[in-house]
């Protein structure tokens, strides 16, 4: 789980540092402009490749995937599902 979080946090800081005082797990990185809607599509593809998972249409429509902590949880649960 920690490496998933780290991967996400690293990726969204490709262009900008996230200030230290930000509650990073609850950060909506799309609303805060770290990744725009076009970039989100690329980000999803990168995550699918990196962790060998697939997002459903329902996942992609959910606001949760735009929040760092919730995205990490979703990825982790999919990885567990794949490992079983």
């Amino acid at each position: 789980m920690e490496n998933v979080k780290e991967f996400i946090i690293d990726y969204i800081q490709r262009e900008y540092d996230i200030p230290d005082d930000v509650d990073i797990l609850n950060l909506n990185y799309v609303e805060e402009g770290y990744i725009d809607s076009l970039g989100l599509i690329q980000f999803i593809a990168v995550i699918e490749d990196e962790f060998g998972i697939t997002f459903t249409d329902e996942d992609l429509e959910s606001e949760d995937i735009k929040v760092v902590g919730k995205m990490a949880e979703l990825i982790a649960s999919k990885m567990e599902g794949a490992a079983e």
Partner: protein
Amino acid sequence: MRSRLASMFYANAQMNPDKLAIWCDGKTATYKEMADLVSRYSNLLLRQGAAYGDHIAIPMNNSIESVALFFSAADLGICVVPLNPSLPLEAIKAAMAAGDIKHVIARRAFFADCEKSGGLDIPGFAICLDKEYPGTVPFEKINEMPVERPEIDHDVDGSESLILTMTSGSTGTPKPIDISQDNKYERSMAHIRVYKITQDDKILAATPLYHSLAERLVILPLILGATSILLPRFTPAIWLKCVEEQKPTFTIAVSAQLAQILELLKQPDAPKITSFRSIVSSSALLEASVKYELIDLLKCEFHEMYGTSEVSTVTDICFQETKNKQNSVGKPFDEAEIRILRDESESDFDTDCAPGEVGEIAVKSKLQCKGYYKQEAMMNAAMFGDYFRTGDLGYLDEDGYLYFAGRKKELIITGAINVYPHDIDVVVGRLPEVEECAAFAYPDDRLGEVVALAVVPKEDQEINLRALKTYCARNLADFQQPHKIFIVDKLPKNTMGKLQRMAILDYVRENGLDQ
């Protein structure tokens, strides 16, 4: 002889050391602090081996350090090549090759990506902006550098290239627009005069720094002695929060941003924005209703401008002063002259369009760039005598006001009749259920091309195709009727939010809508 741009900035720092020079993303620098940063940056570059005339590429984000780099580069006679960091690596490498890059300044992620794809082949140094990366110099070394403005062993007379702006996106040959230090100076002075900008102004830049608009908006205040407010990233909410807190007085925004900002300003709990004395809309003509509502809410002078990166701003119009020219983009700056060229005019000099007749907008301007870097043939092909052919269509009225009528390449020719897609966009865009729309050329065996239309519905709204066709039938000429209508979730745009009309056909096909 030292750089005029850098010297003007240093003079301001000496006169008003404690004045706020720049704000970005919660960080600030006074003129003294900014001058120290610029000097340290210059010293860092010199110690790494940077020399007069070198080109430095930087996948650039909006930050105080990025702005400092422009002034260090000016002071040393170095050229900065700002790149869009979200471009695919392949496109960045193509741009670097086209720009004769010697050194690179980038973030870790960029160097890691390069390593994955076979490494980065540059003759000079690499500086890593965030933390450390093997084979690069950490930017943090800047803190060890002296704060004295370094002596240099080469005159900087203003003819040096300061910025190469790459105009193409992820495909195609990069077209590096070569902007000299004198270009930047002249352009800044023209804007200061036209928009009556003073040292008391706080100037907001809300577009990416790898584009000429934001570069202009950060360089201008610092050579004038005003204050620069640099938005780190654009979302309407970040813009509004920044404006509420920093109270900028002047900005040039792209029209697509203003439309989004308006939506937010209309919310019942939106803050009252009263700091602007003047706002300029650029990039594409703003829908009249958006303009009226913005003026009502922001209560400031409202301008629209027309220009290109090659020739800078060409025309300006103040909405409140010229109420009878509502759809015009204005009259030329003193530095610019406009001709409207008829087609097939390469060899014939007597081909200016009559007032009201649409042709290609060609501009002769003292603010014109040096050219396309090492692509002289491409620049020559774009010239008609002393006039730069913009590739945009428009017309002049009898009073010399310019009207924009779309991109030349975007023209739809259906059965030998010219259709200006912008005309269709405006009509269909008036429907309440339409968020935005764009007409484009669709290949057709019989007519060569037919008009197609891509429509983005407003959130939670549906487009009734039958009703839309009836509406078009009532409100458009027969040759303007869309033969095909595609409902899409968005329109392809570049990073500045400018519609990429030529890419719509590919977009609908890629998304399986063209069946």
